């Protein structure tokens, strides 16, 4: 066993904040090494330092026994270190082959046939198949992930850093990815896996390093004696025992939201939602599992009144609201936790107080005649900030002053305020740590139970949905699939529904 990457005493400060404090990381050659921790624990910062994207204030990096200091990612690549970041760096308008070569072209003149032959050889070795001349935009998330890995191989990387590689993949694609990664490891390549999915760590990795608040918390080998279990890992990550979630069963009340064979047109004119029917009852939290881009977005658009409904209807408390616009829907109690909080959830230059009222300004008790009741607005903002303990420096400060996680807390709390009827949550816990995630789901369930409302939660993380929702349905290619009786909590069965393989 030889150590291929050794980082010792890495320290990095951003202003007054110490993002990394004397962090060590030892990675053995030919292994899959997991790096876990909450958001803000310093995982990504540490990896960016290794990859040359950031400078460390102190500490030593050794690669294959030699002291290294990369000033940019090009130098890191030259030394055989490559990184696939969470947001793919594939350019959809270029062909797969062009994406593969970009930045590492074989020469000034590109002999496309030779390049294609080499690319195919590389892909075959990994058991992948690509039509190299097709635009990369036509790739599925799993295909894009494979292309990213091939890009590293093309650059002859032997140490690969993968940041949350399964975040956008279906369970089956995720498993297939690990088969490929294990093959790479068997061939001697080293993989550093940044993840928050603990089952992945325990099933597929051979070592795990846990960071918390910018410090080393634990380092363990997996598969040997004293292997930590998931609860132990979670406790390391959070810093104390994490209570297991117990969802108290709820007897569904009367139906609140009813979707009847709804068909919705997408942005590009295609039919994105193809006849979905779903009924939600009082007190119910329903998880909508699916790979990104399978109609979740368009379904939500139709439900908040901005989508183009081709056919079908939406009933709220028995009343047809299909033709009502977003203002009407808000009044009826439809609330959204949007996918992209920066773009759709808040106005970043406005104060927290104004953002608290954003979208709710026409509702009692905020409205008083033609005016907005400023006192009520301040009270509401305070309550929203309090709910998930948003860290802020004052309600009068602009939204921009909040970190992403805190903005998400704020937006989620806002959706639960002022008597909602239906809560539509698109990845409500994106960017939140474990505690924040648990708090948001607990509050969702509590609101639904207490006020007799219902919620749909879209997430790309099936495990999270199974753990937190009353029931889970799958969406694939714009159609809805409900698990068979007896398989409602069956991860593999729902995973198959997500990819249409049932």
């Amino acid at each position: 066993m030889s150590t291929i990457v050794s980082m010792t005493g890495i320290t990095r400060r951003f202003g007054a904040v110490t993002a990394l404090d004397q962090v060590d990381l030892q990675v053995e050659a030919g292994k899959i090494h997991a790096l876990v921790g909450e958001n803000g624990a310093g995982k990504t910062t540490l990896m960016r330092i290794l990859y040359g994207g950031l400078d460390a204030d102190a500490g030593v990096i050794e690669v294959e026994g030699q002291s290294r200091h990369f000033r940019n990612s090009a130098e890191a690549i030259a030394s055989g270190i490559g990184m696939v970041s969470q947001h793919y760096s594939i350019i959809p308008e270029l062909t797969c082959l062009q994406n593969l070569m970009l930045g590492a072209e074989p020469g000034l003149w590109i002999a496309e046939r030779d390049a294609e032959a080499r690319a195919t050889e590389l892909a075959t070795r990994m058991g992948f198949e690509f039509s190299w001349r097709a635009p990369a935009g036509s790739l599925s998330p799993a295909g894009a992930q494979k292309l990213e890995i091939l890009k590293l191989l093309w650059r002859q990387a032997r140490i690969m850093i993968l940041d949350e590689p399964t975040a956008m993949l279906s369970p089956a694609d995720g498993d297939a990815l690990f088969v490929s990664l294990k093959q790479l490891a068997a061939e001697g390549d080293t993989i550093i896996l940044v993840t928050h999915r603990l089952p992945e760590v325990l099933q597929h990795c051979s070592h795990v390093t846990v960071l918390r608040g910018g410090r080393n918390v634990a380092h363990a080998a997996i598969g040997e004696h004293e292997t930590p279990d998931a609860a132990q890992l979670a406790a390391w990550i959070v810093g104390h025992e994490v209570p297991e979630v117990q969802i108290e069963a709820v007897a569904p009340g009367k139906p609140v939201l009813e979707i009847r064979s709804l068909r919705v047109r997408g942005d590009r004119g295609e039919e994105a939602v193809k006849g979905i029917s779903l009924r939600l009852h009082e007190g119910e939290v329903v998880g909508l599992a699916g790979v990104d881009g399978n109609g979740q977005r368009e379904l939500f658009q139709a439900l908040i009144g901005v989508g183009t409904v081709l056919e079908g209807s939406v009933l709220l408390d028995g009343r047809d609201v299909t033709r009502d616009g977003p203002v009407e829907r808000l009044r009826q109690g439809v609330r959204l936790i949007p996918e992209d909080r920066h773009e759709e959830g808040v106005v970043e230059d406005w104060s927290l107080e104004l953002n608290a009222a954003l979208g709710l300004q026409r509702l009692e008790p905020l409205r008083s005649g033609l005016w907005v009741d400023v006192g009520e607005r301040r009270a509401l903002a305070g309550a929203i900030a309090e709910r998930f303990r948003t860290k802020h420096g004052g309600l009068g400060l602009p939204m921009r002053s909040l970190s992403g996680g805190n903005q998400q807390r704020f937006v989620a709390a806002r959706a639960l305020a002022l008597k909602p009827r239906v809560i539509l949550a698109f990845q409500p816990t994106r960017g939140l740590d474990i505690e924040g995630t648990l708090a948001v789901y607990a509050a969702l369930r509590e609101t639904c139970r207490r006020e007799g409302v219902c919620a749909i939660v879209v997430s790309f993380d099936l495990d999270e949905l199974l753990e937190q929702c009353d029931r889970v349905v799958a969406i694939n290619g714009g159609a809805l699939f409900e698990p068979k009786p007896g398989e409602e909590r069956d991860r593999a069965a729902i995973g198959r529904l997500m990819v249409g393989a049932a």
Partner: protein
Amino acid sequence: MGSFDLILLLKTAPGLSLALLLAAMGGLTSERSGIINIALEGKMLISCCVTALMSVAFGPWIGLLGGIGAAVVLAMLHAVLTQMYRVDHIVSGMAINIIAFGASNFLDKKFTDINRTGEIPQLPFEFYYVAAFALPLVLWLYLRRTKGGLRLWAVGNDPDKARQMGVDPVKVRYLALLATGVFCGLAGAWLVTNAGRFVDGMTAGRGFIALAALILGGWRPIPAALACIAFGLLDSIQLQLQGSKLLGAGIPSQFWNSLPYLATLIALAGLLGRNRAPAGLGKP
């Protein structure tokens, strides 16, 4: 409908297309790198003026180099404004057009010798013909088959991702604008060579027509070149139809005059082909 001379039409059209072709290829490198370029007009105009003045003083080759140099200076100004100071691309393009208009007028008034208003020395026309008609083919090959072309294409589509892959978008854009300057310089030199002397505002909107052709051609060299030739044809039809009677009615020459501009307007309004724009156009 009067005398419509097809032979004359086919003879004049290529000449009228040349400046459009060169300028459109200049626009291509710029817009493919992600920089919106409404300043083709100004870059051509400054080249017209400087080529005329320097040809008279130092001979045609130095004149050509001077014209290209002047256009390159404006192109580099464009690059510095948009890349270093993050000025909006449309605003900086506007500014460059205004600078070029004023500067060419000033230089012309200042340096034109009243005693020598005769013809300026010219390079052989064939030089421009070969350059203009070979350029789209060369660019097509460059974009499809070379490292530089791939990087140009990538930066125009997504500068951030290109940067992640180790490509320096700013460098690519400076080079792209350098090429824009050279091609617009050539276009201006041809205009003044063809006309024989410099006239204030002589580009007469050809920079914008070239841009329209580029958009019509979907930002691809060969289709854009074909669009330029089509505009050239339209121009020569327009010249012939002036003063002719159509269906017995006398149509004012201004109508025919406006034809190429009308077509340009329709193309620029984005009714056609906007959807094929480089995805990163105008992004920092």
